[in-house]
């Protein structure tokens, strides 16, 4: 192939501790392709990226076999600064990759290091910023940009090196749906306009469908599937077994008609359902709209006219006149784009921030009468960044920390540690140093530490970020299990499939206000309002809405509910 840009042959790699991270990887990529690499956490995605960019062996060492030729260079024979002129690398955390004080300097930084003349750098910077849609923001500080903009800036900083290949390691894992769409649209645009080649790793299976030309699936360091998205997503059973999420419509097709070609798009899904309905004459046999009711139990938390403004120049208003009640036993999903006020809201529950206006009541009492430490015994909050929440030398100690503050008996502490680590799948990691765990597992550990304290209300702030499919559902199921055991659970997430599957009530926030609040099925029927909050309903909800005229009951949000509705009607 003349236009070959990546040629990996029998690549194997083991880290110094002996763990084999890659086994006999062989694949080729042609110029202009967008290739998505899928796989559960620990499958070897990041290690593969590090090989393709020369970070292994230049920064991280280990034992390598086989070869990787990228952009005509054997990556083991060149320092990173040489490879960087042809291969640009973006990781999942934009914060640690933005080094410079303004956008222009950030984009100019790479070419400056290569001694490229000023005029040429300015031309490249203009092109790169325009390519990712950040033109006009040259003098802005990176700190003032949104998550999606930051990640696009990192992308632009790589583009200004005029690379032949982009390697992106989970570039959207910390972004909201808009940020994700922004970054992925940039990739499509770069391919269309400049024939740019991209390899990116991700957990966002739904998004891969519209972006990637090819998909590679890794499991335990090996390639287990490869092909077009349609070919790969047709292997539903295999993907499910290696912890890769199958897009909703494909899963629906597999469950409804496993013998037929697997549908991929919303149109495919509609066609399949219509065929089934017409073939079996089920159309008029459905029950009426799904029941939607709100809990009316004891009010545990109440926000009354709550507003909050972050001081600064200029001040930023994060909450505007929020009024809501949290009842005992509810399972609530809180959704909204980054900066909509979700985290600010839950921080108010524990007095981590003081309201600018209004108040928060816990069981009818103003929380200003308590300290955060006192509130934490009744309201557990697992915050977003696990690295700020782990401060002991083992997973066991981490979970024990809160229990000792509760002054529990030793045998009770041991029992709860055992239970909480088991809940999040870390039962074999009692003595592991928390910082040696993967990012996803560190998040799980912070959740375990909060859950072990058994507070009446458990708040999880984006517990599923950077988690793979299995990890996301494990945490959400844990939330559901605790909810069924009597705890009130509030979960902030960008993952609509989790909210629709697990939350009974959903709160939609936008611009510091509560835009929608009600039973999940009802909230997700408000397509127009959701659009205002930049929230895209899951594909099944869209299919359901578009087939209303066929008699489908409205309010179906999950694959299983749709299968039940269709098969149950027969």
């Amino acid at each position, binding site marked *: 192939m003349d236009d070959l840009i990546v040629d990996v042959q029998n690549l194997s790699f083991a880290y110094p501790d002996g763990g084999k991270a890659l086994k006999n990887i062989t694949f080729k990529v042609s110029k202009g392709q967008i290739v998505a690499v899928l796989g559960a956490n620990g499958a070897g995605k990041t290690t593969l990226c590090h090989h393709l960019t020369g970070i292994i062996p230049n920064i991280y060492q280990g034992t390598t076999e086989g070869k990787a030729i990228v952009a005509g260079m054997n990556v083991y024979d060149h320092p990173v600064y040489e490879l960087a002129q042809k291969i640009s690398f973006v990781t999942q*955390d934009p914060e640690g990759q933005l080094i410079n004080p303004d956008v222009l300097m950030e984009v100019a930084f790479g070419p400056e290091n290569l001694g490229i003349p000023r005029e040429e750098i300015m031309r490249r910077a203009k092109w790169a910023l325009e390519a990712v849609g950040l033109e006009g923001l040259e003098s802005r500080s990176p700190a003032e940009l949104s998550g999606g903009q930051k990640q696009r800036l990192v992308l632009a900083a790589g583009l200004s090196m005029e690379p032949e290949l982009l390697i992106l390691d989970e570039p959207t894992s910390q972004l909201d749906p808009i940020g994700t769409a922004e970054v992925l649209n940039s990739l499509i645009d770069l391919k269309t306009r400049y024939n740019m080649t991209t390899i990116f790793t991700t957990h966002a299976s739904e998004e891969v469908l519209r972006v990637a030309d090819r998909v590679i699936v890794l499991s335990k360091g090996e390639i287990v599937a490869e092909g077009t998205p349609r070919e790969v997503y047709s292997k539903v059973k295999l993907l499910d077994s290696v912890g890769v999420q199958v897009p909703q419509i494909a899963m629906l097709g597999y469950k409804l008609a496993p013998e037929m070609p697997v549908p991929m798009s919303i149109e495919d899904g509609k066609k399949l359902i219509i065929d089934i309905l017409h073939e079996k004459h089920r159309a008029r046999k459905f029950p009426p709209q799904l029941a939607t009711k709100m809990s009316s139990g004891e009010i545990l938390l109440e926000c009354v006219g709550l507003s909050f403004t972050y001081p600064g120049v200029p001040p930023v208003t994060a909450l505007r006149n929020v009024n809501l009640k949290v009842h005992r036993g509810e399972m609530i999903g809180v959704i909204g784009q980054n900066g909509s006020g979700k985290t600010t809201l839950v921080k108010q529950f524990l007095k981590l921030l003081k309201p600018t206006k209004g108040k928060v009541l816990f069981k009818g009492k103003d929380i200003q009468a308590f300290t955060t430490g006192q509130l934490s015994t009744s309201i557990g909050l697992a915050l977003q960044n696990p690295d700020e929440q782990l*401060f002991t030398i083992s997973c066991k100690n981490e979970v024990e920390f809160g229990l000792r503050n509760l002054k529990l008996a030793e045998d009770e502490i041991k029992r709860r540690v055992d239970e909480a680590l088991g809940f999040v799948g870390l039962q074999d990691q009692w003595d592991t140093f928390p910082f040696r765990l993967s990012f996803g597992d560190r998040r799980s550990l912070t959740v375990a530490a909060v859950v072990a304290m058994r507070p009446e209300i458990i708040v999880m702030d984006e517990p599923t970020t950077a988690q793979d499919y299995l990890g996301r559902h494990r945490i959400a199921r844990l939330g559901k299990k605790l909810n069924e055991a009597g705890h009130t659970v509030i979960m902030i997430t960008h993952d609509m499939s989790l909210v629709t599957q697990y939350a009974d009530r959903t709160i939609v926030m936008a611009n510091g206000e509560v835009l929608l609040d009600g039973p999940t099925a009802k909230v997700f029927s408000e397509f127009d309002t959701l659009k205002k909050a930049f929230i895209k309903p899951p594909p099944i909800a869209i299919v359901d809405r578009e087939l209303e005229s066929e008699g489908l009951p409205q309010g179906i949000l999950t694959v299983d509910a749709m299968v039940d509705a269709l098969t149950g009607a027969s």
Partner: protein
Amino acid sequence: MFLVLASFAVSFFALDFVLIGIWLIFLLGWWVLGGIEIKRVAVILKILLGTYIFFVILQGFTYRFGSTVLFQLGVLMVGNRNYAAYTLEGFLFGTLVFMRVLAVVFTLPILTMTTPMTKIAATLGKMKVPYQFTMIFVTGVRFVPLVFQTWTGIIQAQKLRGRDIDKMPFYRKAGVYTSVITPLLLYLLKLSQTLQTALECRAFGSPAVRSYVEEAKLRVGDYVAIISILIITGALVAMKATGYSSTPHLFL
């Protein structure tokens, strides 16, 4: 940049209340010209209060020229000096040392709030400062807010696990802060790894001679500033050289 160097020089030679006082007023004049709110002085003083207390306690008991005893906690004779006696001269010297610290600290807002970091980096480049040093400075400034944010986050996380820091006595709070440092350092180490990858992926360390997009050029305002700094510094040097001192008893 020139002002920072001058401030270091003045704080080094001007061991005198009046001379340092003149310099501090001169610096605050630059604050006003640069649009920096004077009320930020209170913030700086609040942050440095502990340092001031440390200086006046230490110097009060240990200043070798101290003779006017204000109070004493007992007798602790070393040679012919009672280190349990707190002296006026020691208190004044401690205050003076603190003012020297202020002379340097007051220049930092002028440097960082009135000059974009890009210009500072370009100026350092023009002064032939190796880019590795400039990079350390620029990334340091870039990551300081992140360090504070992480520090706050770790303390919040401990409160969220039932550690009632708000109700703890001071001495126990100090213990809590020690347990914050370990995760903070680990976080910073992780961040530095990400940073290293990001830097190398953008050809940092390439043997090529670095170019600069930002051009450091002196303008009329810069010349006026340099001349005024030279005049004031020169005047202070002259006062010092002619033997002027408002506090002669301190420097016997």
